[in-house]
């Protein structure tokens, strides 16, 4: 499974991360510049710095910037969750999408929307609770996968089978919720399931950012403890990593990261799988650089996916989640096939 990558010296990681940051910022600015009307990047920068003209300010600040910002947060958050899950399960196929985390989160959100919306499609409670509902669902999803798989969870492919099964149950329950519910709930939930970054407002972005930031800091702290998790269970424990406790902590952090990331944009698949792989290829095996690299690449991918749907399909709003799935699903199949050859 692990390709032979020449070890990159640790000194190159900061440079590579800096380049990735610049690339993400440039892409994000382009994401704001592109749309039904082109706004030159220098004008975009001017608006962001508070010196733009009125029409452009409206377009940039109310229409385009929110979707780019949420794409950065959601893509990055999911990528970090994927990185943590791949590390702690020692399984390069693990990701929030295949371990029941995203579907669990989806179920949490749909139940939340169904239970707490009134006839006029407005929530009777604060939107702040939507990420918490997603978190509860995501945690239940991953907990179900690991409780059901039990001792089999050490096998990469078997863990995935349980993840896919739990995900399917959650998806089916989401369907039932949609079919038995009133029509407005169906359209609301359908958008969420496809995963789209438009129609996100600044309040939702603030909630996401406020919840995501402490989780990312926690992820970095966790990552510093993570190196022995590369080893088999007995070896990791014998150098002093309290794996049984630590594993639960990592699952909880990954579930929370995923839930917060997807709470408002919906289920965006495969970013959490691909971004950590790419990060590892670029910055090597370092844990902290891997987390930062995963965040940047996840952000880059989702901003890019959203840009692609806006440029290719305008004026139709195609959910960005479809683009990540179109690229991610074949990649996942490829990984599964190469895994098969090794594991028999």
């Amino acid at each position, binding site marked *: 499974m692990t*390709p032979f990558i020449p*070890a990159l010296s640790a000194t190159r990681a900061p440079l590579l991360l800096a380049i990735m940051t610049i690339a993400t910022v440039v892409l994000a600015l382009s994401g704001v510049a592109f749309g039904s009307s082109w706004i030159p990047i220098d004008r975009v920068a001017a608006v962001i710095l508070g010196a733009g003209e009125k029409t452009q300010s409206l377009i940039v600040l109310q229409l385009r910037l929110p979707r780019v910002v949420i794409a950065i947060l959601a893509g990055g958050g999911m990528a970090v969750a994927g990185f943590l899950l791949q590390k702690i399960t020692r399984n390069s196929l693990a990701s929030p999408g295949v371990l029941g985390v995203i579907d669990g989160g989806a179920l949490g959100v749909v139940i939340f929307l169904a239970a707490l919306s009134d006839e006029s499609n407005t929530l009777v409670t604060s939107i702040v609770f939507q990420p918490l509902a997603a978190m509860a669902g995501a945690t239940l999803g991953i907990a179900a996968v690991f409780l059901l798989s039990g001792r089999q969870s050490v096998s990469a492919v078997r863990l995935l089978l349980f993840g896919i099964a739990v995900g399917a149950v959650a998806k089916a329950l989401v369907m039932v919720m949609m079919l038995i519910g009133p029509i407005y709930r169906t359209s609301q939930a359908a958008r969420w399931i496809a995963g789209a970054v438009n129609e996100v407002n600044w309040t939702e972005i603030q909630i996401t950012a406020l919840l995501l930031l402490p989780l990312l800091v926690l992820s970095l702290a966790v990552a510093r403890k993570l190196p*022995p998790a590369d*080893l088999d269970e007995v070896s990791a424990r*014998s150098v*002093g990593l309290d794996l049984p406790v630590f594993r639960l902590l990592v699952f909880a952090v990954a579930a929370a990261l995923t839930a917060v990331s997807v709470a408002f944009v919906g289920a965006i698949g495969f970013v959490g799988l691909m971004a950590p792989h790419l990060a590892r290829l670029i910055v090597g*095996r370092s844990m902290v650089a891997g987390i930062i690299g995963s965040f940047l690449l996840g952000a880059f991918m989702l901003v890019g996916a959203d840009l692609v749907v806006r440029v290719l399909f305008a004026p139709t709003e195609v959910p960005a989640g479809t683009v990540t799935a179109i690229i991610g699903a074949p990649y996942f199949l490829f990984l599964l096939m190469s895994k098969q050859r090794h594991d028999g």
Partner: protein
Amino acid sequence: MTANPAPSITIDGLTLAYPGKTVLDTVTLAIPRGKITVLAGPNGCGKSTLLRAIRRLHRPAAGRVLLEDIDVADLSEKALARHIGLLAQNPSAPEDMTVEELVRLGRYPHQTMLQRWDAQDTRALEAAMAGTGVASLRDRPLGSLSGGQVQRVWIAMVLAQETEIVCLDEPVNHLDLAHQLDCLDLVRQLNAEFGRTIVLVLHDLNLAARYADQLVFMRDGGVAACGTPDALMTQDLIARVFNVDAMIITDPAYGRPLCLPLRTC
């Protein structure tokens, strides 16, 4: 080193059970300081389980493991990892991990949030790599090494941990004859030069007799016999523990007892 050293580890009435099966049944045993103790016995006798229980990888149903006079149950994970090192039976690490990266992980229990990598860690890392002869391989990925080399790197990791007790669970499994001797000579060197107390699980009775200071025969989750190889390698005991009729001769090269298995009994 005194002639009759105080026990480094005392196993006191240790019982370990899974639902429906008792794996260790009130095991009582002393591991002498600065010696090589080898646990041997037929398949399923509980020797690997005992080794892992010494390192607290299993929770005992009854009894305790004392390190000097401290119950290992009272130690934190990292504190325990500074006292007892354990090389797993089939350890695995990513193929693209380099030799030095793996050996560095041996320093993990010595680092805290406040105390980062320091000169002491570098010294231990270099000593471990030099002592096991893997320093020249430091930048090589593990996937590019032979089985014998990889085993040396794992031993280097355990050595870098700087524990007074080193446990090794069947370290010569899957190694060819030359690498088996090479690996066990290295273990003996850790014992002689670095003064580590060694607890080894070995399958091969003759290798066990050759390298052990104290030999422990286990059967059905208990200690069947414990003593020097000369005292334990008898026709009667081997028949009782291993169900094998054997002839015991003296190895002409090393003067150790040698078992020639004849037939099962």
